[in-house]
């Protein structure tokens, strides 16, 4: 070992209290689902972590009935101040079990422990804290006096932030008086089922939260169920369009958080070292499995070479490997399927003539890993500039004038997020104004907070999560 190398510092997997078998959570109980059990895999080792019982379509019906009953008899009738106490309690329990949840999340998802420990789990708790406070103050949310909940919310969440997305969905739904049937992603169901235990510990009335592991067909059954009043979906634009089509003509209220192809715009007067940190964080955080990832870097031509040089050096220092190692920067790609998709898009970049540079970091022999990759000489027409890759792959384009930067940044059907790097305040505000995106980070990137609304323009979906604005999704207004 060289003098500046790191010794391994793995977090113990025992902390995760991993069980051999997990079951769906319906009406306050863990029950045997009648779906085909699935095996969830540790993407860093390809080992089977646990067997998870799944729901069938008939279980979806049972869960919706449980949610309806809880809504009618208990939850919608309870004073907001009482609902608030349950949410505060859940937030505390997430904090108390945060190490367990973080390790379990990293095992199941492949994300580095430093991210699950320092970002995902604390932010999930924060969402419950934030929304707990709204439960008894909805008259002040700006939607008129005494706004009403919708009823039963069907929620379908992705695999990139399994617990955090659950918190984004469940906390506002419960705070506003709705009950929930949530389907976690097929490849990452475990923390959602530990969350179900937390609901039991918090003595949440049975049926208020129901969790149904399963594949896309179960998500579709939740979306299609006739007694569901609201659908909240986070995932791909392709599936989002399908859901919008399915829900068309029903009374169901819909919010969609879909894909993105964010532009991260670096001007020549930007603090370049900070910008490079922001670029790296923007695209390599969570292996690039972030819908708002800064996957298109737009650099002003005069500093492009300098930025590229700094960027390659910085990316080459990222450590890829065991997600449970506290020194790991880049963990595993969540599934073999996702890895294949990333490889396919990267090959298209080669074929279309972009210049590929891949970090020389060692790649583990086992597991699903993809080394951080940066494409330069990228043109707007290339697939790698247009399509969401959802992996650690950055496409770099250049521009000369602010107007050109705006035009290129907005040249996408997506509109979830954008980044601006410049020392000039007036230019930040001008750019922020012009960019067609729901979140704009200036001289920073990938910041999230339950108090700050998040969501997209155009094909990145509609509706917001977080803040006062986010409450609208769960209120009849």
């Amino acid at each position, binding site marked *: 070992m060289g003098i500046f190398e790191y010794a391994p510092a793995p977090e113990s997997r025992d902390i995760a209290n991993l069980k051999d078998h997990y079951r769906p959570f319906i009406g306050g109980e863990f029950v045997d689902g009648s779906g085909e059990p699935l095996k969830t895999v540790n993407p860093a080792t390809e080992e089977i972590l646990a067997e998870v019982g799944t729901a069938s379509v008939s279980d979806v019906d049972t869960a919706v009935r449980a949610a309806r009953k809880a809504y009618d008899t208990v939850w919608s009738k309870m004073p907001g101040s009482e609902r608030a106490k349950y949410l505060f309690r859940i937030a505390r329990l997430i904090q108390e079990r945060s190490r367990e949840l973080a390790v379990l999340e990293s095992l199941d998802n492949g994300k580095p422990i430093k991210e699950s420990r320092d970002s995902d789990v604390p932010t999930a708790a924060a969402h419950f804290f934030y929304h707990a406070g709204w439960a008894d103050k909805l008259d002040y949310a700006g939607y008129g006096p005494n706004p009403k909940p919708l009823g039963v919310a069907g929620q379908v969440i992705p695999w990139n932030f399994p617990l955090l997305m659950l918190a984004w969905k469940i906390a506002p739904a419960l705070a506003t008086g709705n009950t929930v049937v949530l389907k976690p992603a097929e490849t990452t169901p475990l923390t959602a089922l530990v969350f179900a235990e937390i609901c039991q510990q918090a003595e949440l009335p049975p049926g208020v939260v129901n969790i149904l592991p399963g594949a896309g067909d179960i998500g579709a059954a939740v979306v299609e169920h006739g007694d569901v009043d609201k659908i909240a979906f986070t995932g791909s634009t392709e599936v989002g369009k399908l859901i919008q089509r399915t829900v068309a003509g029903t009374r169901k209220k819909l919010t969609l958080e879909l894909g993105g192809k964010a532009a991260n715009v670096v001007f020549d007067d930007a603090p370049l070292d900070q910008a490079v940190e922001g670029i790296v964080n923007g695209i390599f955080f969570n292996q690039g499995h972030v819908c708002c990832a800064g996957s298109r870097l737009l650099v002003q031509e005069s500093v492009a070479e300098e930025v590229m040089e700094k960027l390659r050096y910085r990316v080459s220092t990222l450590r890829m490997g065991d997600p449970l190692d506290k020194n790991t920067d880049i963990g595993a790609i969540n599934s073999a399927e996702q890895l294949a998709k990333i490889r396919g898009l990267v090959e298209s970049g080669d074929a279309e003539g972009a210049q590929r540079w891949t970090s020389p970091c060692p790649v583990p022999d086992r597991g699903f890993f993809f080394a951080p990759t940066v494409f330069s000489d990228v043109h707007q027409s290339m697939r790698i500039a247009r399509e969401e890759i959802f992996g650690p792959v950055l496409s770099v384009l250049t521009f000369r004038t602010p107007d050109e930067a705006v035009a290129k940044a907005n040249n996408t059907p997506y509109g979830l997020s954008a980044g601006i790097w410049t020392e000039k305040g007036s230019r930040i505000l001008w750019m922020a104004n012009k960019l067609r995106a729901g979140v704009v980070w200036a001289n920073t990137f990938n910041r999230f907070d339950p108090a700050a609304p998040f969501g997209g323009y155009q094909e990145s979906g509609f509706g917001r999560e977080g803040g006062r604005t986010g409450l*609208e999704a769960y209120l009849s207004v």
Partner: protein
Amino acid sequence: MAKTYKLYIGGAFPRSESGRVYPVTDPQGKFLANAAHASRKDVRDAVVAARKAFPGWSGATAYNRGQVLYRVAEMLEGRREQFVSEVAASEGLAPSQAESLVDAAIDRWVWYAGWTDKIASVLGAANPVAGPYFSFTVPEPTGVVGVLAPQESSLLGLVSVLAPVLAGGSTAVVVSSAERPLPAITLSEVLATSDLPGGVANVLTGRAAELGPWLASHGDVNALDPTGATPEDRITLAREAAGTVKRVLTVPDAEPDWTLTPDLSRLRRYLEAKTVWHPLGV
């Protein structure tokens, strides 16, 4: 004397590209006028005009937008007598009933004119995030909105669906009531001679059932108000709209009572919330 009316696109009054017209009658079947029967190409031209007008209108100050809209209300009132007779003829009402509807339409326009410079402070926010950042959220106009105007309420309904689009800073392509288009045509003349920039509002006379699908599937239309479509057609329109993740307004099956005071729901539907973050430091 019966006249042949035209469309209102990009601030001009072209004939329908299709050359088609259709007769407009009162509820008793008496001929009132010929109206242009807009086509798919007219829809596309109107969307182009609305998109072209969007940067200017959305970029205008709220103060300016408010004054422009208030000026429209003033001019609407200036042609009160004409609107009263057209609403009465179109909807088969007594003059006194039509008068109260026209007055309500003027008031409605004034109400929305006053919202332009209040939307951001009522719907925006400074976000108290847990970290050294200044984070704020501002409402922004969604873009080009396709509006299928109410079929029954020829003026008050039309104003109630158009004004919130414009007040929020979006631009509009409106398909008027098919059977009762005359107040919409006169409103176009008001808009054309007001300070509203050409293309901000475009008014097509024609059939919602025919033109709605082109608006719903158009890639450069950001939102759709299907009020003037039948409940069955609205389902098809909503499915078409899913292809571009369009915002589609949820509307009641039957036309609501437009005389009731509106809330913010229509304004809110054509606004996006943009959250901006910046670090704090020295």
